[in-house]
């Protein structure tokens, strides 16, 4: 069952991720991203990281993708992405794809990792208490920094978006 779940979610995730790249339309891409995230969340579940799966859906799917969609709608771009590539860029794309495939296959063939029996390793991700313990003791400093990160992100969005008196913005 676990295996089936894995394969199903894995396939789903990869397929929808490919959809993000392949879709003509930004809205479609965002929807594909959303689905892909759901797939990843599923994989998280398969890895017993329930909290993280939930958070992923909440933060990514709920907030980030929504934001994307919102912006896509807001900008309401009439033009679609120009299609077709020049010979040079086509060659570059093929080369890049080749490189990526080569890299992946190298990673798979050479990067084999033995693991102990997963059944025997403790699934620490299930324990919510552990997260909080870690976040508030060991990783307290990064959490504080994160706070400031979010603060400056907010500030940044304000600076970049708000109209200021006297500014010669045109919209």
């Amino acid at each position, binding site marked *: 069952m676990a295996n089936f779940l894995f394969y199903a979610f894995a396939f789903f995730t990869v397929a929808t991720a490919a959809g993000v790249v392949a879709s003509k339309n930004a809205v479609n891409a965002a929807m594909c991203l959303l689905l892909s995230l759901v797939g990843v969340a599923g994989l998280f579940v398969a890895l017993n990281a329930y909290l993280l799966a939930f958070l992923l859906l909440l933060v990514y799917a709920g907030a980030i993708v929504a934001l994307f969609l919102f912006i896509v709608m807001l900008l309401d771009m009439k033009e679609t992405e120009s299609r077709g590539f020049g010979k040079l*860029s086509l060659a*570059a794309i093929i080369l*890049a794809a080749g*490189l*990526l495939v080569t*890299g992946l296959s190298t990673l798979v063939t050479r990067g084999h990792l033995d693991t102990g029996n997963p059944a025997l390793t403790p699934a620490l991700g299930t324990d919510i208490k552990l997260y909080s313990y870690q976040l508030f003791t060991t990783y307290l400093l990064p959490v504080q920094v994160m706070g400031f990160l979010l603060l400056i992100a907010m500030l940044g969005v304000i600076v970049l978006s708000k109209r200021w008196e006297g500014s010669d913005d045109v919209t």
Partner: protein
Amino acid sequence: MTMLSHAIFVLILPLVSAAIIALFLRRSGGAAAAVSTLTAAAIAVISVILALHNERFTASTEWMRLGGLVISLGFKFDDLAALMLVIVGIVGLCVHVFSLGYMHDDPAKGRYFGGLSIFMFSMLGIVFADNLFMMFIFWELVGFSSYVLINHWHEKQSASDASKKAFIANRVGDFGFLLGIVMCYWLNGTVSLTELAAKGEAHTLVFSTLIPLFLFCGAVGKSAQLPLHVWLPDAMEGPTPVSALIHAATMVAAGIYMLCRINVLMVPAALDVIMWTGTATALYAALCAITQSDIKKVLAYSTLSQLGFMVAAFGLGSLSSTHLHGTEAHTVVIAAGVGAAMFHLTTHAFFKALMFLGSGSVIHGCHHEQDIFKMGGLRTRMPLTFWTFTIGVAAIIGFPYLAGFFSKDAILYLAFEKNSAVFALLALTAVLTSLYMVRLWKLTFLGAPRSDHASHAHEGGLTLTLPLVLLAVLSLVAGYTAFYPNVFSGVFEHIPEAHGSDHTIIFITSLGVMAVGASIGYFFYKSTPTDTLADKVPGLFAALSAFRNSFDGAYDYYVAKIQQRFALFVNFFEQIFLAGLIVRGLAGFVGLCGLGARALHVGNLNAYVYWFLFGLVALWLFATGVL
């Protein structure tokens, strides 16, 4: 005062005089002339004292030391040096005195007399030098003073060119001279003349044909032998007293003096080269002199020719004669070349200086007219000059019992003994000498004046005539070795003397050539404003002129067409190839790379992402050593 301190005083005195003139008396020519002339007088007096005093000495002090290279400042005062010293002193004094009158109105008198003092200093340095480095140093310095004095009337293009030519031709000779010195230094470990002589005595000298040949290069330059003779006729652009002193009596003779100094280093092969060079120069110059119309140029070529005689004499080498003392036969080797050359040098110095000063007197009298075809009839107008000049002419053509007669006989005898081809050629040269000298004499002094200048000519003042008289006397008596006190025996005992039948042969030959040449000269040439030879045998005249100009032509061709063009080519090569193609090209290449690198920043983000991907791959490949 010891004799050494006399010598030092003599050497330093003209330098001090020159320094004083250069520093303080540049604008006051009269004072400069006085200082310089007094110096010359002192030199002459002390020279004679030094020579007469029977003390011969060597002394040296270290001048520079660098590692094992020691260059010393020394005195080698032997009979040879003493003889040369006296010649320089006396001729120098005469010329100084003559210059007082001759250069009286020159605006740059200070510079002139300063130059003369510098020259005296340099020349005395050569005379005294006890080693080749020191000799080289003063060798160069006489070249410098010659340069300054030839260039005295520097606003004349010809004077400027002539001085340059003289210096450069001398430098070419010095090129070899220096190499010879350096080679001798490494081969024999010393360049001290005394030590070399000692090694020669001890038969430890290392011989090499190259050393004397290299050293001879110096003499070729300084004594204006073929093929570096070209500067001497041009050097007549200088004031006439300068020509008398430097380009007739002393400096040009330094080459012969130097050869005599290094006689110990000579090897037969080198002597042969020297001999033939001298002979060729003698003959060539005599041929050139025939077609000259400038009084000084005739004398210049005659000087060349006489220098050729001396060099040839030196090249003929030593004589061995066998005397029978009872039953024992003594073989005596005398350095006949040295003796003959020095003897001729001595007599030549006097009579050639006399003639040059005489010509100076003529030029002065004729308001700087130098063309003999515009002279004539000066005999009556300048009688003293005429008579003294006549003595000079007689001396040079070998009129019996005058100075030149003895010395030339000695050379001819030596040639007769050693090499009959040389003898024949020298004899021929002697004919020519008589011919052109008589031609000059006749055209200048006899007949009717052929120009206003000549007709208004007049004798100069006492300063002009007094030296003439002195030199004339010397020209009369200098041929008698008995005339000299015994102090020069170190030189004069080597003068070859013909005895018996040889003596007769030489005497007759000598008389014959003199008579033939003089007759042709006297009877062939007419006192006309044009050259009789050019009129009568224009082909020969043209041929001789062309022959004379051939060297200059060749050099001019070399300088203008080869050296200058090659220099321009090399310069072009440097500008175009080195500074252009390579340097600018490299810069351009880097610049192109820069443009290429600049073009990579296309501004498109997608393109930039490729950089990341390819960069990642490349980095991986580098990291794992694939690339």
